[in-house]
């Protein structure tokens, strides 16, 4: 029971969705459902459920429903809602936490974003800095979808022509930031 309240779960055991969502819910407790966040969101038109509705689902313990909608994945972290919420709630952070939960739970709707981010972070882990072409190549490889790279090709070619990116075969092996990445994961898995 304790686990469900503070979201910590038992160390060593995989967390349930409820446990993962508990800290996000805690951030939203003061929501008065005024809808200012939805009205401020530049991507609300594309969302299948509004940010306000998402908070409602969260507060009424309908966590599963949140991840059936694409709403959190469409947050472009513009901080407009955070700035305007009359209760001063950290809404962009809440959206980011939902993204992290979706990444941890391997939620289908968020898979494309996760692969994008993971490919990016993989390049950072290896070299300390992101190599843009390597990152894009890793992304396409992870998508296993030959149609996606094509979409990017004209831009990729333009950038290569300007010498802004170079074509790189992703390099493997030990990375510059291995230890830092490992430690962060270790601490996060424990808490």
């Amino acid at each position, binding site marked *: 029971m304790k686990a469900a309240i503070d979201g910590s779960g038992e160390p060593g055991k995989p967390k349930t969705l409820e446990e993962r969502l508990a800290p996000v819910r805690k951030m939203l407790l003061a929501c008065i459902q005024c809808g200012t966040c939805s009205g401020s969101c*530049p*991507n609300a*038109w*594309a969302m299948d459920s509004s940010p306000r509705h998402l908070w409602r689902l969260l507060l009424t313990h309908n966590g599963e429903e949140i991840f059936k909608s*694409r709403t959190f*994945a*469409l947050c*472009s*972290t*513009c*901080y*407009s809602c*955070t*700035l305007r919420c009359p209760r001063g709630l950290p809404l*962009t952070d809440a959206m*980011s*936490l939902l*993204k*992290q939960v979706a*990444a941890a739970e391997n939620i289908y709707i968020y898979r*494309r*974003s*996760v692969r*994008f*981010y*993971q490919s*990016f*972070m993989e390049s*950072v882990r290896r070299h*300390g*800095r*992101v*190599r*843009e072409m390597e990152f894009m190549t890793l*992304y396409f490889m992870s998508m296993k979808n030959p149609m996606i790279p094509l*979409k990017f090709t004209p*831009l990729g070619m*333009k*950038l290569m022509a*300007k010498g*802004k*990116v170079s074509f790189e075969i992703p390099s493997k092996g030990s990375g*510059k*930031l291995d*230890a*830092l*990445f*490992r*430690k*962060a*994961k270790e*601490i*996060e898995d424990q808490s």
Partner: protein
Amino acid sequence: MKYIYYPGCSLEGTAAEYSISTMAVLGALGVELVELDDWTCCGATAAEGISHLLSFALPARNIAVAEKMKLNCDILVPCSACYLNLKRVEHETRLDPSLLKKVNQVLETENLVLKGKLKTRHLLDVLASDIPVSDIASRVIKPLEGLRIAPYYGCQCLRPYAVFDDPEEPVSMEPIITALGASVYEWDMGGRCCGASLMSTAPDAGIELVAGLLETAQDADAVVTVCPMCQMNLEAYQKRASKKRQMHYDIPVLYLPQLMGLAMGLPDDQVRMDLNLCVPDAFRNKLMARQTA
């Protein structure tokens, strides 16, 4: 004036012209930049999308390295995404000692400690707050007369931390644009989101934001930005946005220091407009037609 310079990954690659023009313009204004030793990626928007702690540890590593340099000056960051990531560490670790502790546990692997003594500043903050606009004006030798410039701030240099400008109705670029001899194109989209990484993760949604901005900027001669992500989104997807709206968008999207460099008469290899993907002839002709002041 002296700053520790954190360029960030984009400025080494797709936004090379931003870095080159930033260093050139600040140099011409007598500002000294010392590049951060062995800097690494700040995590961009990617770390945040998968790991909370990593999204703090990656930028924190760079601040810790800067502290180790013992220069005791602010960290100057031109990229808005990098800026916000570093700023967030500065703010949140001050408010939350347990976060600082966790971050330092991670940094131990690099033999680094974050003390939280240094301030992170956005390039625009430095240009608008530290450098007197009269200094900029006095350097202008080829004023940008007759050019209407749309100032585009994007999100992350304005929000959530309102450090140097109004987070909803930003104005900090206006005196600079005027000092360069250009006029400010009036629009209310300066602080609207460009879609950030949605252009890659959900392009159907991202392209609408880009198209909306381009449409409103149509009557300007150029858009100026202070963020590589905004610049790329607005510059590289004009064709796709045009198709979507059945319009023809063809508008240069320059970095603010590039525009400054043009007015200050800096040589081409310090402005690097050749690296921009979209510089229409009409814009070039207007630049050519300018008189030397």
